[in-house]
């Protein structure tokens, strides 16, 4: 890092993601707590009642090992849980069970789309730990009088992934997070749609100056925002000749700023030691037996090779495994057409409605693509049909078949012959343009197509109209 040019931004991330197991890391309480009241998903173990003992969740370990393998980590012979001792009301045992000197994976990497092309980000380590509970501060804004605690979140399995300081911009940080999210979702270990399922701490410095840690970034979008704010803040200080303090700052999501934790973070002494209530893990053989699913990068390459679609379409389609799965179910209608429709049109419509791909029914979409492929509907008409379908899906209504919608909205493409009289009228009315066309001005044809299109209200394929007009002009050609 020392040989980076002055002023370079250096970023490393510590990413905590909740693993989507059915039960908590050390007890059988359900992890599906978000819609239930406080303290309804707790038991003696996750409440830290005296005498309770933790029991390790096999699937949580399996999920973590999947990630270790996907991130090309070295998996050591043995891993072990340790106690991290610190005192806080949301930490019911007065220590957190985590991993310390024997994590599940070390020295891995993840390739991302960097600012200057493909870039390899090194992963320092990954390990499992338990989530603490949740605190609500009560009374008087900046000066809370007391706290309220909900232990439902206590014991949810967290995977901590630590990167080396290889990121050089907030955008690269965002890309890393996005690529990681995509990878974790492909591995079926993570659901990024759940609130609070991802939390990030970032270390950021500008070469030659002190390092600052930003804690508590709790959303995907927050990472780029927090880092961008922090860089501006640090650059301004440097410009004014002030010093950058080595400190911990908190990101305030709602205001988009970071604020100093004001030195209250004294150097912690966590007094780690091996958790005596759990046995160590032997995971080397285990991880070798894990078969990974196809991951985003491989799937992207395959989409290009197998379906002959553009790399940009392939990247978009494989960014989310559910989207890629959807595409693969409709690609047989026509891979290139389907790619355009899914990646460009459908995704845009979904984003506009804040809907996810999971809510789009496959069979009607296949029917719609078939209508487009058969040219029995125009692109414009098909988009209208799609919108009706999505509105129905958004309201949890039965989605009508596209041909029904076409009929109802009278969107069917009129057959070519019907346009002949209209085309004749246009040719008769715009003789100067016809002359221009005869003299080789291509733009004249487009003008004539436009005039016919106006008369049919857009319900025609421009290419087909062009052919009709060209043949009519040829028929009436003075030389014919």
């Amino acid at each position: 890092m020392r040989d980076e040019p002055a002023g370079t931004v250096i970023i490393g991330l510590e990413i905590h993601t909740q693993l989507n197991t059915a039960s908590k890391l050390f007890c059988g309480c359900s992890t599906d707590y978000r819609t239930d009241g406080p303290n309804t998903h707790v038991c003696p173990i996750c409440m830290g009642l005296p005498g309770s003992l933790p029991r390790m969740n096999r699937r949580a370990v399996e999920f973590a090992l999947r990630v270790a393998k996907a991130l090309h980590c070295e998996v050591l012979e043995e891993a072990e849980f340790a106690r991290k001792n610190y005192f806080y009301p949301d930490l019911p045992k007065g220590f957190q069970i985590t991993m310390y000197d024997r994590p599940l994976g070390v020295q891995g990497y993840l390739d991302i789309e960097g600012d200057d092309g493909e870039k390899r980000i090194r992963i320092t380590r990954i390990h499992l730990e338990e989530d603490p509970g949740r605190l609500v501060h009560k009374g008087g804004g900046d000066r809370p009088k007391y706290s309220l605690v909900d232990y439902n979140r206590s014991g949810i399995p967290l995977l901590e992934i630590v990167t080396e300081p290889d990121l050089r911009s907030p955008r690269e940080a965002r890309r890393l997070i996005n690529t990681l999210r995509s990878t974790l979702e492909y591995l079926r270990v993570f659901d990024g749609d759940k609130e609070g399922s991802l939390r990030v701490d970032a270390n950021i410095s500008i070469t030659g100056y002190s390092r600052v840690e930003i804690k508590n970034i709790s959303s995907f979008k927050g990472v780029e925002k927090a880092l961008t704010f922090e860089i501006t803040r640090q650059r301004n200080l440097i410009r004014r000749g002030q010093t950058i303090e080595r400190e911990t700052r908190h990101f305030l999501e709602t205001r988009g700023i970071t604020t100093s934790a004001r030195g209250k973070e004294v150097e912690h002494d966590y007094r780690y030691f091996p958790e005596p209530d759990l046995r160590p893990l032997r995971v080397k053989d285990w991880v070798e037996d894990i078969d990974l699913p196809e991951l985003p990068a491989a799937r992207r390459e395959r989409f290009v090779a197998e379906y002959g679609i553009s790399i940009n379409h392939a990247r978009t389609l494989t960014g989310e495994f559910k989207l890629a799965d959807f595409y693969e179910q409709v690609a047989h209608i026509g891979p290139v057409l389907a790619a355009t429709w899914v990646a460009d049109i459908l995704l845009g419509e979904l984003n506009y409605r804040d809907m996810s791909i999971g809510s789009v029914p496959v069979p009607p979409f296949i029917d719609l693509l078939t209508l487009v492929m058969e040219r029995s509907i125009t692109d414009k008409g098909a988009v209208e049909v799609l919108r009706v379908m999505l509105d129905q899906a958004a309201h949890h209504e039965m989605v009508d078949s596209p041909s029904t919608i076409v009929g109802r909205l009278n969107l069917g493409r009129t057959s070519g012959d019907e346009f002949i009289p209209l085309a004749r009228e246009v040719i008769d009315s715009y003789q100067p343009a016809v002359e221009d066309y005869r003299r080789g001005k291509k733009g004249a044809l487009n003008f004539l197509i436009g005039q016919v299109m106006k008369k049919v209200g857009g319900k025609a394929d421009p290419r087909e109209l062009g052919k009709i007009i060209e043949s009519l002009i040829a028929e009436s050609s003075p030389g014919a």
Partner: protein
Amino acid sequence: MIERKDVEHIAELADIGITGEEIEEFTHQFNAILEYFDILDQVPEGTEGGTVIYNVLREDEITPSLPLHEAIGNAHSCEEEFIRAPRVM
């Protein structure tokens, strides 16, 4: 050799209240105890422990949580379904 300030520091690290009188008393006692513990410096290294058991795991199955009245039943102060705690800021 442990001094008063060391005992104060340990109390702070342990986040535990201690009176001035106790600091005096503990300083004296800690010295005697830690001096006795110095024998550990003579332990030869490299002895292997006994057989260790690995990978004791449970399946990812949901078991019933406590009913709310039992979950918060031992807490002295609750507000709705939350448990009250001192402020942290």
